[in-house]
Structure formats: C-alpha cells, structure tokens
C-alpha cells in the first residue's frame, strides 16, 4: 500500500516528517471543485486522492509502523547523535535547569501547604518538568500559550514570579484572577498565557482560532496548546485537529502523554498509536518525543514552531513522560498504581537528573551549585508563602465584577 510506503518513509526522518509535509501540501491545495479526468485510471471521488486496489485488503492498525520516540540524550545525559545536540549557550541550559529545580521546589512546598490546610488545592508537575521547560524555552516569548493545568513550568519560564503563583493559590488581592478560581488556574496577559479553565480540551479549538487570527494578522507568532493524552479523547480535540488542518493554522498541539488521566491508564484511553497516531489521519505534521529529555523536547518544539509559522500549518507533538505525582491533592494514586511503579520511574528516568548529568558532563554544574540553588529556591518559596498568607483577600465586590464588561442592572 502506498500509504504504508509513505508512512515507512516518514519514519526515516525522525524529527520532522518531510514526506508527510509534502503529501499534505498536495492534499491541502484548497481546490474547491473536483474535475474528473476520464482518461486517467485513478479514483475520481471528491473525498480522496488515492489509487485503486484490485485485491481486497483490510488495513489493520498494526499495518502501520508506530511513531518512533525522538531523543537527543540517553538516560545518563550523554548525547547520542552530536548533530542533533542543540547548540545552546551554557547560561541558557543552566537557566532551563534552574527553572526545573525552582518548579520542583515550588511544587513540593505548595503541595505540603495544601496538606497543612493553608491552600485548598494543588497540582504538581513532578516528572513532567522537561516537557514544560524544554517546550517553553523553544517558543518566542509572545507565542500565545493555551495550557491545560499542569503547565506551571511554562509560565515560570516566562518570568511569572513565585509571588504571583503563590498569590493565585491563596486567591489573595494580588491574584490577577481576583480570587475567583481554584489554585493552579493561572493566567497572565503580560506573559501571553491564557487563563486556565478546568474543563479539559476546551482550550484546543480556541488555540486554533487564535492561530487563525495570528495568521491573518501576519504577525509571525504562533500558538501552542498543551493537553494530556486523556484530554485527547474529548470531542474538542477532534474539532481542533480538524479545524487546524483544514483552515491552515499555525498552532502547535503539545500532548503530554504522562500515562494516566487521573487513574485511567493509557491502554484504557486509546487503542491506536498514542496521540501521535492521530496526526496523519487529520493531515497534521506530527512528531513523538521523549518527554523526559529536555533537549529533545526543545528540538522538536523549535522545529515545529519554525514549520508552523513558515508554512501556516499545525504540528502535533506527543511528548512521552510519566506523571510521578498524584493527579492532584484530591487524588491518592496508590489506589490505582503501586508505589513501587512510581518509585521505579522516578529513579529510572528523571528528567531533572538527566539534564543535570548533561550539565555536569559539560562542566557547567556541580554539587555546590545544586545545594546552593535548592536552598535558595526553598527560601524563596517559603518566604513567598508566609507573605502571601497575610495578604488580604480581594474586595468582596470583585465577586460581581467582570461577569460582563458593564455590570448589568441585576447585579448592581
């Protein structure tokens, strides 16, 4: 089958699926009418450009090769293919690492503070630090981010301060969201990070719409939408993929496949080749990456961004990772997975330790720096927490503002 050949060829180039891009260009020519060519012995149906088959063959899911997992480093932080190593300045990689540690510390302290009853709720990003920092670092600062809820690291990379995070979690009067939403529902216009809402996947078609607006504005920006593999089961994911492909939108769909949607494991979430497997079906350029390899995530996001903006086309990235933390503070994951499993993942494939080893091999990081930064971040977050707790709650009148642009008579 030609499709199989195409798919096999596709996997020869791991990073960006060039043959697929070519085939999509052919398919997305935008012709509005179908002109049958009676002399050419090819199918002339308006719905497909394909070829005849004279022998019956059912195409099974296993007829396709699975998307490979692109990586740059091995689990010890060693570069596997020097030509794939991003040539990043030491300060830049160090900043990535420091942000991951800060994120980790913030998660630890805020998680504990919830357990102490000081904040009402929290969601950690343990285990997924590389997906967040690696992708955020590859974007332009003003690319619009639509997050799901576990993308604290993206906003942290963009300079949203620890005080701002903590104030949101307390819902005090310094919270930009004015105390209206649960903790971790961050948003910042200044950081081009659209405010998070709890419903899953609603952000995906919205991201496509924003990308379309950017395309018409011709402003060189793109949009990135983060979501989990569970969220990809929602109808909005289908809507978004299909709209982005048909309307040629410069949007990056970034799937964090962390193995679990609350308790539901991936094998009960889908049957095909993960989320990446959806890409070709929608006519979307697609890549799968080792989400625990910060440099690989950086590389695929950078290449995807360049492609999206240059071609005004969507890209689907599936980052494979593992959720080390519970779904949220309302969840105890030991009810559906063993502590041994979590422990094994934490020690076997930690994104933080992998980047640390890379830095160490480069001679850019050492134990003294590690100790000192960890101590500094802990102080930073604890001080912020102590301070934010004492900051007053917003004025009660804020409960009624911003429902509409002007307050209606019923509320005033």
């Amino acid at each position, binding site marked *: 089958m030609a499709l199989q050949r195409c798919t096999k060829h596709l996997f020869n180039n791991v990073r960006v699926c060039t043959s697929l891009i070519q085939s999509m260009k052919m398919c997305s020519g935008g012709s509005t009418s179908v002109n049958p060519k009676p002399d050419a012995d090819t199918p002339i149906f308006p719905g497909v450009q394909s070829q005849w088959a004279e022998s019956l063959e059912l195409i099974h899911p296993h007829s396709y090769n699975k998307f490979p997992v692109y990586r740059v480093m091995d689990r010890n932080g060693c570069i596997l293919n020097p030509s794939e190593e991003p040539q990043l300045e030491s300060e830049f990689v160090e900043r990535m690492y420091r942000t991951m540690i800060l994120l980790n510390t913030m998660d630890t302290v805020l998680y504990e503070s919830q357990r102490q009853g000081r904040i009402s709720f929290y969601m950690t990003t343990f285990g997924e630090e590389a997906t967040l920092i690696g992708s955020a670092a590859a974007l332009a600062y003003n690319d619009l981010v639509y997050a799901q809820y576990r993308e604290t690291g993206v906003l942290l990379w963009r300079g949203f301060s620890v005080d701002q995070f903590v104030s949101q979690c307390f819902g005090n009067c310094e919270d930009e969201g004015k105390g209206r939403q649960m903790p971790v529902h961050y948003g910042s216009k200044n950081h081009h990070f659209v405010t998070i809402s709890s*419903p899953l996947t609603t952000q995906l078609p919205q991201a496509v719409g924003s990308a379309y607006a950017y395309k*018409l504005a011709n402003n060189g920006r793109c949009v990135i939408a983060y979501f989990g593999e569970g969220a990809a089961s929602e109808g909005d994911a289908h*809507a978004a993929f299909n709209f982005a492909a048909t309307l040629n939108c410069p949007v990056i769909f970034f799937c964090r496949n962390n193995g679990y949607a609350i308790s539901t494991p991936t094998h009960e979430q889908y049957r095909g080749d993960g989320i990446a497997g959806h890409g070709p079906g929608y006519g979307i350029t697609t890549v799968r990456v080792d989400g625990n390899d910060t440099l690989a995530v950086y590389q695929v996001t950078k290449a995807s961004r360049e492609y999206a903006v240059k071609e005004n086309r969507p890209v689907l990235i599936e980052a494979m990772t593992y959720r080390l933390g519970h779904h949220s503070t309302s969840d105890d994951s030991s009810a559906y997975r063993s502590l041994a499993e979590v422990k094994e993942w934490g020690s076997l494939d930690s994104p933080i330790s992998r980047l640390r080893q890379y830095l160490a091999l480069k001679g850019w990081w050492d134990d003294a720096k590690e100790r000192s930064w960890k101590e500094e971040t802990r102080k930073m977050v604890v001080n912020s927490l102590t301070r934010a707790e004492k900051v007053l709650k917003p004025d009660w009148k804020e409960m009624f503002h911003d429902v*509409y*642009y002007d307050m209606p008579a019923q509320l005033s």
Partner: protein
Amino acid sequence: MVSPVLRLCMRYRVTGLSSGTGQKSPALFHKFITKRYVEFNFSPEKPCEGKGETSRMNLCQAINSALHTTLVNDPTAVVFGEDVAFGGVFRCTLDLQKRFGKDRVFNSPLCEQGIVGFGIGCAVAGTTAVAEVQFADYIFPAFDQLVNEAAKYRYRSGNQFDCGKLTVRAAWGAVGHGSLYHSQSPESFFAHAAGLKIVIPRGPIKAKGLLLACIQDKDPCIFFEPKVLYRAAVEDVPVKEYTLPLGKADVLVEGDAVTLIGWGTEVHILKEVADMAKEQLKVQCEVIDLVTINPWDVETVCNSVKKTGRVIVAHEAPLTGGFASEITAVIQEECFLHLEAPVQRVTGFDTPFPHVFEPFYLPDKWRCFDAVKKTLTY
C-alpha cells in the same frame, strides 16, 4: 392547572375547528395538522427616521447587510460556519466570500463545538468573530464552549482575557414543518449562564441594528434569528451602519389592560392578540418585545406590569424552565401588590417539538387570546 389536552379542546372551540356539537371532525383535524406554515401576521416597523437611505430587505438580507457592514468597517472581522462560503443554507452570507475573500468568509468543518471554540480563540486574539451555527437545534455540541468558556472568560481571568468579540448566530424557532430538530428555541438554556448576552430580533430593521450591536459589544453574544421571518418579514431597512441597544425591551403597543410579553416571531402574534382584544373585548393590551433575553430589561417589564396588573408571557419553547418562568418569578417579586391576576405563561408544551402537531404545540393567537380573556376575568 389546565391540562394540555383540555387546552387543545378549548382551542377547538375558539377556532371553530370542532363541529357545533363539540365532536371533533376528522377531516378538519386532518386539514389543520397538514398545513406547513406558522400562522402569524408579520407586522412591519415604520420606516426609521433620521437613519438615511433605506432599502427593502427581508430579515435574511438585513443580516447580510449587517455582516457586509462589519466586514467593510472592521478589517479584523471574520465570518464562518458550516456552508457559509456559498451563502449559507438560508442565504444570509450570500456573496460575502466573493466580496471579502476566502480568508475572511469561509466554511468550517461540520462541528459546532469546533465553530464556537474556534470563534472564542479568534476573539481572544483580537479578531472580531461572527460564527454561524446552522440551526439553534444543533448548538448543543457547543454548549460547553458557550457556557463554560465564552460566558466565563472575562470573569475567570480577572478581566485579563475576554471573548467579547465573538457573536454566534443561529437560525431559531418554529418554521411550520421543522419538527424536533429544526424548530427549537433554546434561549433559556443560555440565559442560565451569566456572561452571555442573548438577543432575538422580531424583524429586519431590528435584526440589522441588533446584530451590529452584538458584534460590536464587548461581551460574547448569541444572536437567535427567527428563521420563519427570514423571507416573510420585509421592511425598509437603513442602508448605513446603525446599532440598537442591547438589554432594552421595546414597548410596541401601549395599553392599560394586560401586558403581553414575547420575543422573536411571538411578538407578531401578541400584536395581533392585542388587536383582537381591542376589537372583541374592548380593552387595550400593552405589547412588549423583550429583545434581549439576558441581561433582560426588568425595569420596562415591571413598569408595565405595575400599570396593567395583568401579564401574559408567551414563547415557543417548552413551559418548564422556559424564560417565561424567570420573568414571572421576577414580576411576582417586584410587582406582587400590583397584580390583579396570576401571571400566565403561554408556551410550547413540555414535549419535544412535534412535526404534524406543530399547530397544536405553538402558543398561537388563539391560545394567547384565551389567556387574555382568562386573566381579565380572574
């Protein structure tokens, strides 16, 4: 409470569709339920004064004129939805793609949650988005995007982000033969989501001015278009741009006997009922077009009720949880001591919208008139 069956029987007596002996005539019954039109008389507005040149337009053309005006005046504006490119199944977007290009006027895939979600995203990024949902009956896949997303965008972000530049248009209401899924009036579902504005015009002049107001409004709006009026309603509509106020009800007929409240097509039925009451009962009813379902004009409604002491609210949507219930509740809170009779709701029944039984289902002039008589003799 009068049972639906009893109400139908009462209607037979009023309309003369039953035999003189009170026995139903199968032939007449058959004739009545095989009609394919909604029974109402469109009551055109007087030509606008001071708004310049006018042109004869039906409601469809008035919508087209509003969209055209928007695309000319707002370079960011986009118009999209299923089948929008060739002019739309109701022809409201006719010739817009030819005039403004495929980037600004385009087909979307067949997916309402995608259409609305996409529209929200356009609006968040600063683009004026006018999305078409082909039938209000098919808006429900987008319920989440409208209720959980569009309605709450400004509030949840502390006014950092909003989607006020989004307007969702949808063909709405009974059309004579639309049955369960081409007839519904789902406005009350959306009235329950603070943050959305819901607007329904009664004719071409209102449609153009209100649609332009919705598009320019800083909050997301749902604009329900009574599809039976698309061609039936013709008025002299100002050619240039104009807007009409949202959240403001219109007192169309002044009176002191009974306040009749409706919106969309029902307004024309209520105007006819007011005429019938004047002629047959020698009383003057006050007719109010609510125009905006939410946030609604409590003041205009209550001022009228305080004057008349008697109220009928009529809508095509089913009774239970219909917006008439909300209006009724507010009236009893605000005007209790002024009321001379219980507020009456004349609405569709608590059934799905039926095909051949549509004439029985709708709150037509006879059912409304019957309610007027009852409230006057309470």
